[in-house]
């Protein structure tokens, strides 16, 4: 129960979900883990809670009856960087990609297991802790054995230098700056390539694969670079 030891009592989670059964399920799971809870059943209530109570993490169901989840994300993003995890019942990727591009950090597909929910929450809260602890755009990035020196443009893994091509470096740096957040293919292409041509997608895949080979000790079970098929990639915090 290392999670409890990390002091989850400090984190407030806003659950925005119109289905009462699912809402109570999430609430129960989180309460057991020591999170503080806020609940909202509609988009309007959610905005109210978000603005007045300032939660640490927002779990947002995209299928709200009275509001468009994507709009809600955009609104929240105008004043805050609060991690948003979207929950979507639909299995098509388009809505998740749209949510991520609008500013969400992560996604969950219904039906999800409580384990998955808790894991996602851990990623979000770790990011918060890291962000609040260190300067986000500081000169050095440390994540387990991985160390990136932004100024010198060097990358070391457990002390040994890793040789990356310019593109690979840009990719790694982008993912590192957004540790814990799922970046969509489009977002990555725009940042690294300057535009999001569909023809660049195979290249992105190849670059990510070679990067993984260079960074991960066991490319079959990545510790840092997580792939989300059809959505994007994410850097995990060790």
């Amino acid at each position, binding site marked *: 129960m290392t999670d409890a030891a990390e002091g989850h009592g400090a984190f407030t989670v806003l659950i925005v979900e119109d289905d009462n059964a699912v809402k109570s399920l999430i609430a129960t799971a989180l309460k057991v883990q020591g999170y503080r809870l806020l609940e909202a059943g509609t988009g309007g209530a959610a905005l109210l809670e978000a603005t007045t109570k300032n939660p640490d993490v927002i779990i947002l169901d995209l299928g709200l009856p009275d509001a468009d989840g994507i709009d809600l994300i955009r609104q929240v993003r105008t004043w805050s960087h609060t991690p948003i995890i979207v929950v979507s019942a639909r*299995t*098509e*990727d388009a809505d998740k990609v749209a949510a991520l591009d609008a500013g969400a950090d992560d996604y969950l597909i219904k*039906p999800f297991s409580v384990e998955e929910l808790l894991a996602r929450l851990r990623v979000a809260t770790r990011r918060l802790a890291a962000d609040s602890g260190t300067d986000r755009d500081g000169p050095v990035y440390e994540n387990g054995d991985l160390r990136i020196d932004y100024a*010198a*443009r*060097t*990358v070391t893994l457990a002390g040994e230098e890793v*040789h*990356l*091509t*310019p*593109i690979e*470096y*840009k990719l790694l740096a982008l993912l590192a700056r957004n540790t814990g957040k799922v970046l969509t293919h489009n977002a990555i292409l725009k940042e*690294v*390539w*300057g535009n999001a041509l*569909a*023809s*660049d*997608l*195979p*290249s992105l*895949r*190849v*670059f*990510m*694969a*070679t990067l*993984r*080979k260079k960074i991960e000790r066991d*490319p*079959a079970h990545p510790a840092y670079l997580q*792939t*989300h*098929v*059809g959505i994007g990639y994410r850097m995990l915090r060790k």
Partner: protein
Amino acid sequence: MEPVDDQKPSKEDARALHANVELAEELGAHVVTVYGDDLALQIAQYALSGTISKTVIGSSENSRKRTLPFLPPRESVGSRLAKLSCTADVVVIADRHEARPTSSRPLTARFKPTRTDFAAAFLALVGATTLGLLLHEAGLASSTVLAVYLMAVLLGSLKADSFFYSILVSPLAVVLFNYFFQMPRFTLTAYGLNYPFTFAFLFVTSMVVSSLTIRMRHEAQMNARKAYRTEVLLETEHRLQEANGVDSILSTTAEQVIKLLRTTVVIYQVSPSGRLLDPIPFASGNPDEDVTMTSLVGDDERAVAAWVAGNNKRAGKGTGTLMNTRCLYLSIRGKDTVVGVAGIVLADEDLDAFEKNLLLVMLDECGQAVERERSAEDAHRIRLKAEQESLRANLLRSISHDLRTPLTSISGDASILLSSADVLTDDKKRAIYTDIYEDALWLVNLVENLLVVTRLDNGTMTLKTEPELVEDVIREAFHHLNRKAALHDVRVEVDDPLLMAQMDGRLIMQVIINLVNNAVTYTPEGSRITVSARRAERGQQPGSMGLVAVSVADDGPGIAPADRTEIFTMFYKGKNVGSDARRGMGLGLALCKSIVEIHGGTIAVDALPEKERTSPDRPGTVITFTLPAVEYEADHAEAEQRAAAVAAGAYDEGGGA
């Protein structure tokens, strides 16, 4: 019946004929034209070939008139027809109107002089005279020279167009012979009875030969026309049969009409509900034609076309209705309905009868072809709907069965916990919780599959494919496997981590999940299940892209060869069911097939190769599916260069590489 020598009937007759044909068409008759001279024979022949059971013919006074005083009366058409028709009844109806004197058409036509006649006569006479003079100098008798003249006249009559030739050349021949060869030479005096007789014989023989050649020529012309007509109609029929779809039928017809008439054609299709669709013009490519496309599809032209479609009568230029248009509009009819309207651009002259007739037959065939095609399309749609309905019914049946089973366990387990929790041991309780959890997970996968099935079934699935790394997709699929997979030895073998294929990642993940879950279900615990991927070459098609082949192999009891083709059909459950008998929905593999096929790939099942089997009684199973490969080598290098160029433009190029 069209007479062979094209002579146009008199104005009155023409009008009467036109009115009668229109009336007949209005009443629903099918008007056919045959070619020939002998009315009774032609009708009898047509009746024979066309499965006609009753022939009705009007009798006219003229046929009963005697042509010459001493000849027996010409047999009436009716009685002749009755004699010739063996299969059809012949009904003769007396003409109410008084007999009108017909022009003695046959005779006068054949007496019209033409230029060829004069030329032939001239040449014959000149030739004969010249030759004769030569022979005379050679010392031959004048009787030989007469034979020469006879020969020349006969040769000339082979070329002559009408009897006028005979009338012209016979007296001239006699005169010339007299002048040049008969004593006294170079005078026109004649002695004896020879000349009248010579003249008479020359005249008669040349008339006979002329008439033979004239008739032969006309028959040849008629046969040529018949042959041409048959050829055009056969070609039209052939092309119409090959045409696929109503649009193709209409455009083929337009092309054939253009071939026939060499004028531009505009086709309007009439929808099954009766609405006139937009016109499609077909240019003739004829440089002599003076027509602009836009003038042909203007509102007034369309209005006429609409009228024709609604009233099923011809209109437009050259007809009596709505004449001020560029085109002649004819309806294209099926058996019962108007399926289209054809607009034929007419130059100022009307179409000749032969062409008009062919045109009507072609449009007729077109109409029937369109009707046939529409019926076929309707039948196909109905059949498809029926298939979908039966599939849906099967699906619902199977769903209710396969949902009920795990739901029964879940509710049963939950009720046990509710009622007897205090008497159950912790271990037992844990076992029940686990069962509930696993049943629920199983249901989750089932629902996933169902969602995909319903989307595929509705046709609302728009496949969005992207290049994906095969290894990534396989690994993510492994996160969603049946929990029992943990009891098996599941491994991944993809030697090229950069192997990429074009796919919808989520769908192919579902395929892999289904295949691996299937292997887990139908093999004993501890069996080895391997998911591998490699490049493969496409078949013999040249220039085709490479393929990626993904295989899910297990070393279990395998699938009997007889079942191998069946397992991909929906709802099929193998006879050798594994230990978890209730787990088969039979949907998973059929869904895999559908998904792979909409990606353009293939799926097949086989046994493990000999050397990979763990034991002889376990031949194992290998299910392999293919996906289009994505080439990356070139892209990679180019992308690196391109991106480097972008980076060079925006940032300093520091170290780190």
